[in-house]
């Protein structure tokens, strides 16, 4: 079941955090290493959302600070970050309007330059 949480309350935030323990019912978001400090070190979280934009809103609600690392101040996905729904790059779908289903795996892949 999908939920939208544009302005989550404290109770909703708590529910979102609890929701990370029930991955079978929500899309799974794979968190890249540089952003795991926002997810308490978790490499995957389960977050509700009918599309990628809604999912990012709920991700921010559950893990404050993470969205600005993914999106710029206009709300667009930063140019050096890619978001994939399964193997599909959302730029070639509907960007943030790309629908997600409960069984989808969403990957956030920023450019990694270390060497």
């Amino acid at each position: 079941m999908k939920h939208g949480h544009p302005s989550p309350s404290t109770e909703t935030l708590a529910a979102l955090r609890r929701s990370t323990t029930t991955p079978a019912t929500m899309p799974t978001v794979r968190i890249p290493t540089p952003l795991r400090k926002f997810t308490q070190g978790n490499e995957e979280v389960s977050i509700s959302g009918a599309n990628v934009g809604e999912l990012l809103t709920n991700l921010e609600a559950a893990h404050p600070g993470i969205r600005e690392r993914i999106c710029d101040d206009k709300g667009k996905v930063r140019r050096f970050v890619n978001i994939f729904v399964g193997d599909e790059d959302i730029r070639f779908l509907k960007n943030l309007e790309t629908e997600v289903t409960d069984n989808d795996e969403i990957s956030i892949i920023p450019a990694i330059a270390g060497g």
Partner: protein
Amino acid sequence: MPVEGAPRDHFLVLGAGGLGAPALLGLLTAGARRLTIVDRDIVETSNLQRQVLFDVGDVGSAKATAAAAQLRRRTRDLEIDARVLDLDADNLGELLDEHRAEGVVLECSDSPPLKFMVNDACMARDLPAVIAGAQRWRGQALAVSRGVGACYRCIFEAPPPPGLAEPCSAVGVMGTAVGFFGHLMALHAWRLAQGDDHEVAGSLLAVDLMSLQIHTLRPCPRPACPACAGAGIDPDLDLKQACAALSR
């Protein structure tokens, strides 16, 4: 299997640090015999933990020449051009032009803008390349060949602003991880040299070595990608930033 007689047999390794050092060893074991090594830095004691090509006797020596000397101790029939050089748009272009017909490039720096610069320059010259990066336990590698799948700029479009690009000094680099990705780069480069572009280019391999999650993505080329159109190096790239940290 040696690469002698392959369509391309000269490997240009840009950066002889965390990625470049294992990549060079991987190329050697794959059979590479013609190499160009570019690095402006000297070997420091703190490098030895992960830049396993070097030993304590190399500390204080230029990485490019020390790497060449270490490789020559292992194999006699190597042809190596070691260049202690700060790369910029001009000398990178000259270097790539020298090897346009037979080169395969391995971008092994830790500089985000340099990865884009190398991608742009290689795509404009139809030079195949491997571009990789690693931090902590995680990394990614992409082989690029113009006209075959997505290039680095297709996927990432532009380097992260300095404030959002966490340097290796802040997040750390595991020697095992850069060793893995350096050897993977050598394998990709070897396959590009064999002409296997259609099998290896355009697939972004993202690996988390802590959780052993391997993610292979094959995104579509971006229709308006300037690099794929052969536009060359983006003049907006900050070259000082690009060349500030070639291989640390």
